[in-house]
């Protein structure tokens, strides 16, 4: 990762990147804005807060100068696209893992009620989260804490639901495995559903125009929060699974 310049404060920079992402500004334009801040502060000796004011205000004033039909913006993922992506991914993972399990240990596969319920939960959460809630919550530390808690609880609920093994759709293990593969491929391959994920660090990285190298896309503390979330959630899920009586 590119190391930050000494004179460019992380929190200010992180806020600028986050805010511009939420406004739909493309990675290249964000990289350009960051490089301008870097160059100006290097020459003036000012810190970004003094030279450019609050980062979110600066982000909004910059975004306001871009044309709606220009190259600086990208259409955000629509709610129904988010729902399809989330639901298909969840169901795809469920079918893939269950199909693989039955291929290895024998027996027929089945799409269970838990898998379907989990896919529905993720679809609803994604539909609500992506178009609107993210923009509202990711503007403050407290909002981000609420968002983190909500997503963590969602993950726990999904894992718990996955234990609901009542079969709904019975099919051969190989077919179930291929169904999972097909769902994941259709969602994430770039020329299919993956093209819906245009706006984000995966497909639209923030690039420094001076070096052509990618700059860190997520704020540092967001990255840390995401990293230590998973061990905690996995531990919680393990406890839940251990507590659920076998059916």
């Amino acid at each position: 990762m590119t190391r930050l310049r000494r004179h460019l404060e992380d929190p200010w920079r992180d806020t600028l990147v986050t805010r511009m992402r939420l406004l739909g500004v493309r990675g290249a334009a964000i990289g350009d804005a960051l490089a301008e801040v870097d160059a100006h502060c290097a020459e003036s000796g000012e810190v970004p807060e003094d030279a450019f004011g609050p980062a979110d205000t600066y982000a909004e004033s910059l975004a306001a100068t871009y044309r709606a039909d220009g190259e600086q913006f990208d259409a955000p993922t629509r709610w129904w696209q988010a729902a399809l992506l989330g639901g298909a991914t969840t169901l795809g993972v469920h079918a893939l893992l269950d199909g693989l399990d039955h291929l290895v240990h024998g027996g027929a596969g089945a799409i269970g009620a838990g898998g379907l319920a989990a896919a529905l939960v993720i679809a609803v959460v994604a539909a609500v989260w992506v178009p609107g809630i993210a923009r509202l919550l990711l503007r403050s530390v407290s909002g981000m804490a609420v968002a983190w808690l909500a997503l963590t609880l969602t993950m726990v609920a999904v894992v718990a639901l996955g234990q609901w093994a009542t079969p709904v759709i019975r099919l051969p293990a190989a077919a179930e495995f291929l169904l999972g593969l097909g769902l994941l491929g259709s969602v994430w391959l770039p020329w299919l559903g993956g093209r819906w994920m245009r706006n984000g660090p995966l497909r639209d990285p923030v690039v420094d125009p001076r070096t052509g190298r990618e700059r860190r896309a997520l704020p540092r503390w967001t990255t840390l929060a995401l990293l230590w979330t998973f061990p905690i959630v996995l531990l919680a899920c393990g406890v839940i699974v251990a507590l659920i009586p076998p059916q």
Partner: protein
Amino acid sequence: MVTEGRWPADWIRGVLELAVLAVLRDGPAHGYAIARRLEAAGLGTVKGGTLYPLLSRLEVDGFITTQWSGGDGGPGRKQITLSATGQAELVRRSEHWAAFTDVINDITGAERPRRP
């Protein structure tokens, strides 16, 4: 936030684009150099939070072009150049501004200050 100086902020806000185009008439410059030229000309301190969105608007409108250049041991700079369209716009706005100040001077009875 616009500027820190002797002129009212709303006056500066109205003429800043014209002033930036005029500064670039002397040759390409990067952002901080433009701010320094404006300050040296007596317009006061123009903060980055005001200048760079303004430059972005000028670029979207086609009045300036920009290009990143490598720095000499330091961070690269974004060179800003007045385009042909910008040059024509500068002439148009300058003439418009001159006519406007004549009107204001007539209304107020103020004489146009003579440059030493």
